[in-house]
């Protein structure tokens, strides 16, 4: 008699796996990576390779020799962290910055909490902030090989300069200056569309972030256009798109319900704009995401999904 296979239902499974989701995120990052390589050349390739390599190696070594468990590097989550970190660094930063950042991201932010799924903060963002406060000079040195730029548009404004008015077409397609991943809004949006089509993420968080930024800056811009930059400038400048699409949507560190995700996204948008307008730092996306990461357990506790049959109040 044949030996039949027995298990409780369900007996089939969707095509999604942790590995396939992370692979899709990597694919979605490709346009941004390619644009940065084209713009910044070899120095950025070095940063990218070192970040990914150091992240994966750190995870492997910690799991293998400290935790003594099977390594999970094959799920690509460390590679995603490494790739995101590289895009968050100045494109021509020294290579050891990438190593320090990767070790901090994986070793401290991710593995000390128990690895994938357990961390409170997004590893790449936390590492970027760690580097920014530890090595402020290096992390804000946006020098590029061709040396055709100094301050970023946001930095110029923070230093009291008048807003340079680059054509928004230029902002949208590509621009030089800022972190490697900030170069092209179009490339980031292409990745966003890919993630949506593949059903890796939903629109909720990015739309909540961008919507809040647009509305908040729109209102203040109308009140005093001299002092406050407008919505379009704020949406397409700095790391907002990168943060909203790839960092704020990190599964582990974002809320689980639509209601929670709207609160989370709106919080990021608001804090970003408060820092941009009133803070000492020119850019606030990283800080905003980190601060909102802290609130996720609380949001998860109080924002329950709408239960079937529940009377709407």
């Amino acid at each position, binding site marked *: 008699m044949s030996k039949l296979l*027995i298990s*409780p239902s369900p007996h*089939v499974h*969707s095509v999604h796996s*942790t590995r396939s989701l992370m692979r899709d995120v990597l694919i979605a990052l490709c346009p941004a990576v390619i644009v940065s390589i084209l713009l910044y050349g070899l120095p950025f390739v070095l940063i990218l390779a070192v970040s990914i390599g150091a992240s994966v190696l750190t995870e492997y070594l910690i799991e293998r020799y400290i935790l003594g468990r099977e390594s999970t590097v094959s799920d690509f989550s460390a590679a995603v962290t490494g790739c995101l970190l590289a895009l968050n660094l100045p494109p021509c930063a020294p290579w050891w910055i990438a190593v320090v950042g990767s070790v901090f991201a994986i070793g401290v932010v991710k593995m000390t909490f128990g690895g*994938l799924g357990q961390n409170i903060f997004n590893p790449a963002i936390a590492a970027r902030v760690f580097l920014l406060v530890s090595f402020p000079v290096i992390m804000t040195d946006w020098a590029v090989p061709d040396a055709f730029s100094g301050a970023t548009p946001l930095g110029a404004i923070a230093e009291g300069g008048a807003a340079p008015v680059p054509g928004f077409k230029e902002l949208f397609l590509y621009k030089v200056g800022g972190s490697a991943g900030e170069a092209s809004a179009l490339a980031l949006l292409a990745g966003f569309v890919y993630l949506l089509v593949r059903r890796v993420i939903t629109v909720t968080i990015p739309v909540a972030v961008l919507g809040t930024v647009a509305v908040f800056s729109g209102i203040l811009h109308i009140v005093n256009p001299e002092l406050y930059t407008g919505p379009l400038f704020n949406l397409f400048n700095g790391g907002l798109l990168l943060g909203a699409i790839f960092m704020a949507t990190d599964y582990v560190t974002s809320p689980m319900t639509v209601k929670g995700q709207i609160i989370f996204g709106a919080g990021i948008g608001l804090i970003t704009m408060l820092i941009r307008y009133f803070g000492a730092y020119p850019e606030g996306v990283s800080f905003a995401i980190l601060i909102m990461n802290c609130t996720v357990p609380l949001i998860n506790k109080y924002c329950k999904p709408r239960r*079937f049959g529940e009377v709407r109040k």
Partner: protein
Amino acid sequence: MKKTFKIGGIHPDDSKISSNAAVEQMPVGAEVCISMAQHLGAPATPVVSVGDKVKVGQVIGEPAGFISGFVHASASGTVKAVEPRPDILGNPVPHVVITVEGDEWEEGIVLANDPVPVPELSREEIIDRIRRAGVVGLGGASFPTHVKLNPPKEKKAEVLILNGTECEPFITSDDRLMRERPTGILTGAAIIMKALGVDLCYVGIEENKPEAIASMTEAAKNCSGIVIVKLAKKYPQGGEKQLIDAITGRQVPSGALPIDVGAVVQNVATAYAVYEAVCKNKPLISNIVTISGHSLASQHNYEVRIGTPVSSILEYAGVTLGDNVKVLSGGPMMGRCVSNPGATTVKANGAFTILTESETKRGVESACIRCAKCAAACPMGLEPWLLSRLFRAGDRNDELEKERVFDCIECGCCQFTCPANIPLLDSIRLGKADVMKIIRSRAK
């Protein structure tokens, strides 16, 4: 916008590969072995003993309580044994074994296939005929139909909903029935409407069955008060609560029954069984069973006498089972594994699906990445990741109850969608059982 339920749901590959196989009569074998536990509630009490001669349609088991049902001989012959035998899961259940001799039917059963007009009967007479024919819900739960048609006095049914969604992948028995015997189904619907005292009936059919929708719509032209509703394809549309939501927009509150929102749901196959019981005096002794699987050479829909061994149906369909194959009673989402192919069919067996190891083998579990796909997929608006986590932590029944684990309909959407291969439903099912036990003991 096509109608569907509002919360959650998934889109598994529907694999309706057997939909073009017309229903074929499977000949009766040398022996039938009829379970006394073919309905929800107490198993029937056998009323025949070894050596008795029985005819097709003769009562061999009588109800042993209010929620119980009649069981009839599905073949004529001599009773060989009345004893416990293992069911498809290997658990012993009382059975009546009949050695088949000829094909002699009880008097008064109309055998012709021609439509028979509805006899003039009162509400009570209709329900009694349904009860005596042993009709049970054929959607899977096997709830005795006559009980469902007798709602408590203070609750009023407003609408009958026929479930022709067949949202489980692979299964096509209802699809074939709706294509081939629409008049019978709709006559059955009219009879149920009369028994319930309602004058509106919706038949919900998913859009992936265009022929069934066409044939039912055509047949419904002659019926007043019956509306065919085309639904979007989404699992688990066939869930009672989901179907009511999809068609009427009303959501059955937690812990309540469909009748609390004025709805009664019946499967299309049940409606057909009601038609046969009331108009033809024919008890429920056979059903349509789909034999399907991507690995099979051919797909089939058979009309099979109840009590036929699963192994002989598979043999008749030309299926040879190898090792590490899964035979499911039902579809891949909610079907139960057959561990004992020697067991025989019961009234609610609508399909046997054969899956190969590569189609069904579970992946290795990894850490939860909190993607919330399970919460987005849950049609009851629960948080499966949380329920599973609470159960695994042990001794957290209070919190499980607060998170409404008892609302879980065990549809399997959460586990289907989990990228980390966490066996969410395995845990939730046990947590639900624990909490239900506590709730019941509290009620006492």
